């Protein structure tokens, strides 16, 4: 047990914070939110130069050879600064390919990810708006050397700019819903794919993706036929844990911004940070943030070490879901009217807190998992 960061980790965190605050000021965040692309290819390229897309990929695949935990430290800073774009989707999918892909697939995809030349995303949820296997209904049917995919995925992040989609499909009916699910690596340019933006509170580039007779070569199956659900589960665990770190960074940023603001802003002749009501809001925000940071580091360390359980992740995500919403809500209140405007930074966090809750499982869903894992 050693709860200090290593020197290397400290450097990574400092570098990430400096890079992001320099390269991605909030004015750019707002600009990217309204842009069609939704991210900055220029920053994307610079991050690749720093080795971030491949940070946890082995050097063999052009990566930096660090750990999932190190990746998450960067993601935490992205939550702190806010960086619009497909980084999260891409690195989580890359981790999935690293875990479940064939050597051929790894060689095909991972070096391109490391080089910043490939954007990936997971196409999982459907109009049923569920993270559970019984609600996967997009079909893939064998047809010669190919499979043919039909159906609709919703809430697919970054689909409009992704090069490849990891599409979770049903390839066999089964009494057990987790059987008969297969993941395909699908070229986003394949004929029959229609991608339509779904404008969200987070302005975070989610899409409806319709598959109409989309042919995918059999070799693009990720993992084994009909046994894809365990891979999905593992991916969701990584994604949820990493999302907790992103949210933790957002809590920290919201707390810092608010503490700074209430020291400056005056009312009735005093800085409002001198009023006990405001002080107590801030004290509670400090606590929520502290718990979120602690649980984020711990769960991600466990994921990184292969020691995390479904319970660990569900608890962490459930906690962070409520904490981030609560912290940003109070942050807006402390900012007063200005905090409710489009042009103030705190609203960026408030909006993202709600969307982050939904990504990879909202609180109700996580609590169901907690109950199940605790045996009730």
């Amino acid at each position, binding site marked *: 047990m050693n709860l200090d960061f290593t020197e290397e980790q400290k450097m990574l965190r400092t570098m990430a914070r400096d890079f992001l605050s320099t390269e991605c000021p909030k004015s750019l965040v707002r600009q990217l939110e309204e842009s069609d692309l939704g991210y900055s290819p220029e920053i994307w390229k610079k991050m690749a130069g720093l080795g971030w897309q491949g940070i946890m990929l082995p050097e063999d695949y052009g990566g930096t050879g660090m750990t999932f935990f190190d990746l998450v430290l960067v993601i935490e800073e992205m939550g702190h600064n806010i960086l619009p774009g497909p980084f999260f989707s891409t690195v989580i999918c890359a981790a999935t390919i690293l875990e479940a892909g064939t050597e051929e697939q790894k060689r095909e995809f991972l070096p391109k990810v490391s080089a910043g030349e490939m954007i990936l995303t997971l196409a999982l949820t459907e109009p049923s708006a*569920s993270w559970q296997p019984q609600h996967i209904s997009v079909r893939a049917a064998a047809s010669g050397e190919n499979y043919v995919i039909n159906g609709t995925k919703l809430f697919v992040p970054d689909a409009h700019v992704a090069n490849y989609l990891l599409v979770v499909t049903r390839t066999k009916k089964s009494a057990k819903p987790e059987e008969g699910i297969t993941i395909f690596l699908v070229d986003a340019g394949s004929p029959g794919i229609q991608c339509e933006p779904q404008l969200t509170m987070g302005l975070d580039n989610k899409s409806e993706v319709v598959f109409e007779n989309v042919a995918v070569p059999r070799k693009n199956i990720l993992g084994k036929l009909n046994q894809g659900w365990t891979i999905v589960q593992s991916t969701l665990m990584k994604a949820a844990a990493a999302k907790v770190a992103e949210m933790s960074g957002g809590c920290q940023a919201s707390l810092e911004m608010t503490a700074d603001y209430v020291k400056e802003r005056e009312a009735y002749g005093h800085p409002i940070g001198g*009023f006990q009501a405001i002080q107590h809001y801030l004290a509670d925000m400090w606590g929520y943030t502290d718990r979120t940071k602690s649980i984020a580091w711990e769960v991600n360390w466990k994921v990184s070490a292969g020691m995390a359980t479904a319970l660990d992740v569900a608890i962490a995500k459930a906690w962070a879901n409520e904490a981030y919403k609560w912290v940003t809500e109070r942050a807006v209140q402390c900012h007063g009217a200005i905090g409710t405007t*489009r042009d103030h930074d705190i609203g960026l966090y408030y909006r993202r807190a*709600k969307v982050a809750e*939904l990504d990879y499982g909202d609180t109700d869903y996580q609590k169901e998992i907690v109950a199940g894992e605790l045996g009730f």
Partner: protein
Amino acid sequence: MDFEPIPGLAEARKKYDDFFREEMKKAPPGWEGGPEDLATHEGHAFQRYVARELGKRGWVCLAWPKKYGGLEKSHFEQLAFNEARAYWKAPGVDQFGAGMIGPTLLAVGSEEQKERFLPPIARGEIWWAQLWSEPNAGSDLAAAQTFAQREGDDYIVNGQKCWTSGAHHADWGFAVVRTSREQTRSRALSYLLIDLRSQGITINPLATMSSHRTQEAYFNEIFLDNVRVPVVNRVGEENDGWRMIRATMNFERSGLSAYGAMRRELLELIEFCRETKWQGEPLLNKPLVRDRLAQLAIDIEAGMASARHVLWGQYKLFLGEESPRDQATRSSSLKYYRSELSQRFAYTGCQIFGLYSQLKRESRWAPLYGKFEKEYQSCLGNNIASGTTEIQKNIIAWEGLGLPRI
């Protein structure tokens, strides 16, 4: 004590219900009657249309004297009208004109001001904006810095106002300005009526959190650059504006009709949950959903019960009798109760909608036209506008409970 419905009220209510039922068929799709709906060109056009129809019938200011365009109807008839309008989410009554400056002028305006300004309000023709807040004077209104320099029969006004709702559609504004450099804070404020078409006025949109490129802003910032305002447009005496401000504030309502509207919105949400099966079974079958909807019903009715006492207090004042001792405290308390309840309502709606709750109305997948996505963000302003929750609590502690100020 007697909660018997007021005789004749149900009939009155029916007349207004019938009117709004018909007229609201003409509303733009997804209409909720909120600021975002009113902000758009289309929404404001609808608002003006409804206002003129109401104005023709004398319904905009039912209780006003006939000489100023009212019908001298009872307080309770006004309530029936308000409830019907809230229930149907109808526009057409200018909360700043009919709701604030009108009553203020009735109470403290000169006869000339009344004759000039009240009838167009009652006809639904002239729209008003409230020029009070400034970047450094929100809750602390007495810190306002916009200055009006006397020059003969005019004031020359310079400064910046913000959070002026709907100013880009408004015709006139009522402003808090500073008129003395000798006195400080509330002792140097005056109350001016300003034609928003005057030279030197610039109105810029102030976009709220939920807005994005495709949406119009409801709030504005207003820059006043040597704006000339005739002295006859001052309400009350020079440097006595604070008294007018407090008079205006007292015209905030019981909020009873707002609870009526929430009741309807809850029924709509229940209906949606009954019909919607995202995962094979109706949302309404989920015990947690049932529990949350029941909680909203409880909170709405509790607020309503309390708001009825505010109404009663206002009615007694109207009759010239003494209002209940804790009337002002109750208003402060209900002010933040209502805003926090509307926040819980929005949060609960989002919680129930899960992944779908993030979708803006522009998405064809958005449930209830993205209503809760929007309200999840817009609800925050209610905890701040018209006196923050913290200010209301201070008032209750100091004035309602007599706790010491240290």
